[in-house]
């Protein structure tokens, strides 16, 4: 850990920290009624009179409440009017977009409950509404922000229709799928949806979260948020493993997958283990024509926040080297409590070309932002 006794920096950040692409920004609504203009009367009434039926059992609370007010919000990101952090575009500009001259911010709207909705038709309606809401409230007034298509994975027809509806609309950059679903994402039942994402030019982003109703670890329910937070890595590992072992990338060679907010230091070790088993157990998955690590290198991107903080800061460089600096993309996670500041996230100096790739060029190429 560093000994730092510097003063609070109130001036504008240094030039070298400006102009990045932020691969994880969270927009919020003020009240659920904000979605009403984008719902049909049939679903507006459903929302008001019945509401969400989440698979997790708790309608209005998180299974693991977080320490910061607002269920895990950055303490200084509350708008003066008392609305939730992320709901006020002006404040988002002041604290993120303008402060750092952000080129693009990729929105990850963890709102609306579409993904975990038991009533899949209501889920589909909410997914569409959230997509419209992202544009109306964020991307239209602030073109630097790019929307993520929300879908309901358990309703194939509507999910594919929603992906096709947004195809070619440059306000949308990717399709967002929560890593905790009913079944691992490589399973055949999801294949057509994934194929539709690739066919329509969308990478898929697996932003940590989702409420499947399953225990959040493979070994049962943990006690603390402290345990829950790293358990998201298990969900990510499950999905990486599933997508590779089910042969998804043989089926859909142009599918691109972004792992958001799940860390990345674990990825090389997982790839080593999968390669080792592939040499021994390949008869079980004969359609895999290459080592698992090769699929991972080709098809996966990772975002940085919450950044790994190794005891020896220089170990970060070796970790990125293993993954490939062309596959790592910077993210803040604004306005969440565990967000990263681009000035201080990396505790080690990155080589110039890596910094350019990680802060800008990788995301620009992946999302075709030019």
């Amino acid at each position: 850990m560093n000994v730092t006794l510097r003063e609070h920096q109130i001036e504008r950040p240094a030039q070298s920290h400006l102009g990045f692409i932020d691969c994880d920004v969270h927009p919020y609504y003020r009240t659920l009624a904000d979605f009403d203009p984008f719902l049909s009367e049939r679903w507006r009434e459903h929302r008001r009179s019945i509401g969400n039926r989440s698979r997790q059992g708790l309608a209005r609370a998180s299974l693991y409440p977080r320490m910061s007010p607002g269920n895990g919000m950055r303490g200084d990101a509350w708008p003066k009017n008392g609305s939730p952090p992320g709901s006020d575009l002006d404040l988002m500009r002041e604290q993120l977009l303008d402060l750092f001259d952000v080129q693009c911010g990729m929105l990850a709207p963890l709102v609306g409950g579409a993904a975990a909705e038991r009533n899949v038709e209501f889920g589909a309606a909410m997914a569409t509404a959230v997509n419209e809401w992202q544009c109306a409230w964020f991307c239209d007034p602030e073109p630097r922000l790019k929307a993520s298509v929300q879908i309901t994975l358990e309703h194939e027809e509507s999910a594919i229709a929603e992906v096709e509806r947004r195809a070619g609309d440059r306000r949308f950059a990717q399709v967002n799928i929560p890593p905790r679903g009913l079944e691992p994402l490589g399973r055949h039942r999801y294949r057509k949806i994934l194929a539709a994402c690739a066919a329509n030019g969308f990478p898929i982003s697996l932003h940590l979260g989702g409420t499947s109703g399953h225990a959040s670890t493979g070994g049962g329910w943990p006690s603390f948020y402290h345990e829950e937070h790293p358990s998201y890595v298990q969900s990510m590992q499950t999905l990486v493993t599933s997508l590779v072992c089910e042969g998804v990338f043989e089926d859909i060679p142009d599918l691109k997958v972004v792992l958001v907010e799940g860390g990345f230091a674990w990825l090389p070790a997982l790839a080593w283990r999968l390669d080792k088993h592939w040499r021994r157990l390949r008869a079980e998955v004969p359609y895999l024509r290459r080592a698992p690590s090769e699929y991972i290198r080709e098809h996966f991107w990772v975002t940085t926040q919450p950044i790994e903080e190794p005891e020896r800061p220089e170990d970060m460089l070796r970790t990125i080297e293993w993954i490939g600096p062309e596959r790592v993309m910077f993210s803040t996670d604004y306005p969440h409590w565990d967000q990263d500041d681009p000035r201080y996230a990396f505790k080690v100096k990155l080589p110039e070309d890596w910094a350019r790739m990680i802060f800008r060029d990788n995301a620009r190429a992946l999302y075709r932002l030019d």
Partner: protein
Amino acid sequence: MSRHIVAAVGEIPPGGRKLVTIRGREIGVFNLNGEFFALVNRCPHQGAALCQGVIVSRLEAPTPGEYRLARRGEMLRCPWHCWEFDIRTGQSWCDPNDVKVRTYDVTVEPGEQLAKGPFAAETVSVAVEQDYVVVTL
């Protein structure tokens, strides 16, 4: 070294704080039961405005299942990543020897004495019958 009058004593009640800017530095001045302490408004972890964080106690557990609240209301929790710091010393809870917040000396002095100067009063006007909080930079 320069000394700055930042508040009248009654202005910062026990458990309260005041954020001041002295020579371009944002500094939080805290009152812990009548004693005053000053910390720079910048978390050593990622630079957040630390002095806007919630004030908490130090929760100790000598063994799992046994809890006690110590140092009531004397720890400051960063509004970003929840790192906790000792308001008295600036020491971090997670790494007290190596990660610290910059602290400044604070004294309480009678207005009668301060009126003689030379002190930088900033925006505080001094009355001889009151006591004032003075931060040394």
